[in-house]
């Protein structure tokens, strides 16, 4: 059955795949926008984009047909917060690119050149239906980790969907430690960093609108990408007590302007409120909360601030004094209060276990049957690992659902994807069918029958 299905797909892949039209028919289709799954739906893909998905979708002439009867079809999983592609082996496995312990830069770091699309971590997660990921660097010497990217998990050499999609900052316990030993210290560092960014000449005119300038184009550059870490002439002139490198200060200009999202990791309820309060001083900040284990204690405030949350899904242990109130009902309670919640994996094997996101989403559904707990409806749970994280970064019109015009990241599953026993049968990224073979599947096949009578295992591959 599976083999027949795959044969049909292989046939389809003979043509230039991205440009072609594919119709996936007969499966239970879930759009990833929070709606319920629809049995017997159709998904049509053309030129790497979704054309249509749902019931009564006309099938274009000449489309490659994929029979998904008995199967489920959803958008690919968007890993809400990860360090995917930055490390092959974390512990004494050589250089990892998730942080620079002794480097001079913080906010200026751009994670993009560190992402290796050939990492086995990417292949393993792709084979489990993860098609995009929000990738952030870890902090090292600064409360600012640097600028994260949104990537695709396609089997090609171009993983970056959006470089410098956000800045990442730690303002909870980790931030306090990084800032020299306290949270208050972290907040001073944060405010000072934004002050230094505001002092940069190329930003100052928009604050004062005085029009002061020189005819020298280098001093009034047209900043197409305010975060390309280049400085011109007078931008080198700053206060004497600067703490940031010039590149770090420049990197914070788009944060200050609200042109780049600011992902802030905090867990404690009071820390969440402190972060929301930053907008009194810096109204343009486009804040996204990450972690937020105690978010349920202050749901009304988060909802009122209209700040999205990329939460850890099932934290329920008082793992630290900033997570004393952790509960698996956290996500459900925030969602009920109207907060835009998605699921991320911060500090939770965020380098390689993104495939667990659907397990977490399933667990949130399971909570709906536990008296006293607050869970999440199935459709919403799927949205939390597909469209919601994309929306949190302002990419909802591009990624994370099967709505027309979205990038065609589509997964065909053997069954309900929130059941961990379901398997992936086909993955499209930008409409391109992806290989599902990994080191793991090859090792499995090599050793599934141990037999050294003829030749050692090293000769089977």
């Amino acid at each position, binding site marked *: 059955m599976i083999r027949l299905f795959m044969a049909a797909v292989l046939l389809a892949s003979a043509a230039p795949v991205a440009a072609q039209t594919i119709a996936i028919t007969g499966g239970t289709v879930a759009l990833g926008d929070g709606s319920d799954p629809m049995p017997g739906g159709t998904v049509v893909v053309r030129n790497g984009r979704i054309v249509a998905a749902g019931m009564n979708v006309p099938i274009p002439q000449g489309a490659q047909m994929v029979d998904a009867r008995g199967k489920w079809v959803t958008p690919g999983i968007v890993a809400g917060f990860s360090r995917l592609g930055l490390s092959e082996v974390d512990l*004494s496995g050589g250089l990892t690119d998730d942080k620079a312990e002794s480097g001079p830069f913080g906010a200026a770091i751009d994670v993009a050149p560190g992402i290796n699309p050939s990492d086995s971590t990417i292949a393993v997660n792709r084979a489990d239906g993860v098609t995009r990921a929000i990738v952030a660097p870890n902090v090292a010497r600064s409360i600012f980790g640097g600028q994260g990217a949104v990537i695709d998990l396609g089997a090609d050499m171009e993983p970056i969907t959006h470089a410098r999609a956000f800045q990442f900052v730690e303002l909870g316990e980790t931030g306090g430690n990084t800032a020299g030993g306290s949270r208050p210290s972290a907040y001073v560092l944060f405010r000072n960093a934004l002050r230094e960014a505001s002092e940069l000449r190329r930003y100052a005119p928009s604050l004062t609108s005085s029009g002061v300038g020189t005819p020298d184009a280098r001093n009034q550059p047209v900043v197409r990408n305010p975060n390309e870490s280049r400085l011109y002439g007078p931008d080198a002139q700053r206060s004497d007590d600067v703490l940031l490198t010039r590149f770090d200060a420049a990197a914070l200009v788009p944060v200050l302007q609200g042109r780049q999202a600011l992902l802030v990791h905090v867990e404690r309820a009071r820390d969440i409120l402190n972060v929301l309060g930053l907008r009194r001083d810096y109204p343009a900040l486009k804040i996204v909360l990450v972690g937020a284990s*105690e978010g349920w204690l202050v749901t009304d405030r988060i909802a009122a601030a209209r700040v999205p949350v990329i939460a850890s899904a099932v934290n329920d242990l008082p793992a630290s*004094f900033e997570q004393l109130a*952790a509960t*698996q009902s956290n996500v459900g309670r925030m969602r009920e209060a109207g907060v835009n919640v998605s699921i991320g994996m911060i500090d939770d094997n965020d380098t*390689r276990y993104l495939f667990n996101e659907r397990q977490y989403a399933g667990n949130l559904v399971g909570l709906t049957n*536990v008296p006293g707990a607050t869970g999440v409806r199935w459709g919403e749970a799927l949205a939390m690992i597909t469209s919601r994280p994309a929306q949190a970064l302002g990419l909802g019109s591009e990624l994370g659902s099967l709505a027309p015009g979205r990038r065609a990241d589509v997964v065909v599953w053997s069954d309900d994807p929130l059941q961990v*026993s379901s398997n992936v049968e086909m993955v499209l990224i930008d409409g391109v069918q992806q290989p599902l073979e990994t080191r793991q599947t090859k090792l499995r096949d090599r050793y599934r029958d141990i037999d050294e009578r003829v030749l050692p295992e090293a000769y089977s591959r």
Partner: protein
Amino acid sequence: MVSNKGLIAALAAVVLLLPGCATEQPKKLAPPVRVNLDPYPSTYHAYPGALTAIRNATVFDGEGGRIDRGTVIFGDGKVIAIGGADTPVPQGAYEVDGTGKYVTPGIIDVHSHLGDYPSPGVPALSDGNEATSPVRPEVWAEHSVWPQDPGFSRALMNGGVTTLQILPGSANLFGGRSVTLKNVPARTVQGMKFPGAPYGLKMACGENPKRVYGSKSQMPQTRMGNIAVTRATWIKAQAYKRKWDKYNKNGGEMPERDLAMDTLMGVLSGQILVHNHCYRADEMAIMLDLAKEMGYHITAFHHAVEAYKIADLLKANNTCAAVWADWWGFKMEAYDGIKENLALLDRAGACAMIHSDDPNGIQRLNQEVAKVLGYARHAAINISEEHAWRWLSYNPARALGISDKTGSLRVGKMADVVLWNADPFSTYARPERVWIDGALLYYSANPRLRPVTDFELGQPGEGDVK
């Protein structure tokens, strides 16, 4: 027990010499004093439970059996009957309608650090690794266990875990003694100790010991250093055991006690079971040879990420493998992890089980097995759910030496029972009730049957559904 011919020959030589000594000074030998092998005895007692009959549930008995519309009856802490719909229910039994629900033995986690690495994970409570020397068999995990660790109650309520082994960490080649606990809230660790469970010895091979001590420019710094230190330690233990065997037989002056060697002697005598942290196939093979060389048996490898490469060897040595479903790649010795490991081991006839090593993972071991079943099915290896439950209760009970008491629903065994609100291999399923020795210690519909640890009392979220 694996015997050691060299050791036996050496002991025989000692015995042959004895009559001469005995005839010369027969009255000077004081009779041997027995050492107390259980100085921190269990004070666990079963809590009161009602005579209970669960009916119309799907039953996995833990040994591979399945009964649809089954009946499970327990009272006085023991399983009284298990059977089909026609199983007679005793008068006065409290009946639970299990329609649409599942009954299983309680889950047993063979590898946990709850209490030794509790929540909150602050330095003051970090009590899992006595990383002051690579050889520390003298430490006992039970002396670190903080019974107020909230992790225990999460494992009970979300995980359906009724028994667990607490191990010291893996910084050391010899990490110390483990302890097996019943997952009941208690004021003292003795109040949790599983009555009659043998002790375990945590050993480790591979990267952890060499990293921890190598970074201190101390042996072992390499894998060969690991093995050299391990062998040298066993040789000392053999000598120690010879002294004590002689004393226990003939009396005389009591040899000086060495707590470290006491533990190793217990292993050589077959009273203490070896739980060996080891990832790579080649290293496990070396440890199996080492065990033969020194005259002990490895009960189980833990973390055995590459066990699938030597399933035949594990089977031949009667050594179990405790593994994760999908952990891999976080260090080099975990790089070859595959998601079908457990299934391939089982298919090869080796004794295999799931384990957590994690305060979060222990809450979802049923789902971890569900993952394995899914990946196995995808690789055309079909394993039934009732068979897979062996990986969650019966096989861990075997590895802990308690399968005569718990681990499956058999008449006369402890009534360690979980009623699940749906198929426990569904992501959506949760424990509805958990009984330990027949006492109802968790019921999702009853907020009073939801333990709150001292640590959580008066904290935000106290008594919440966690």
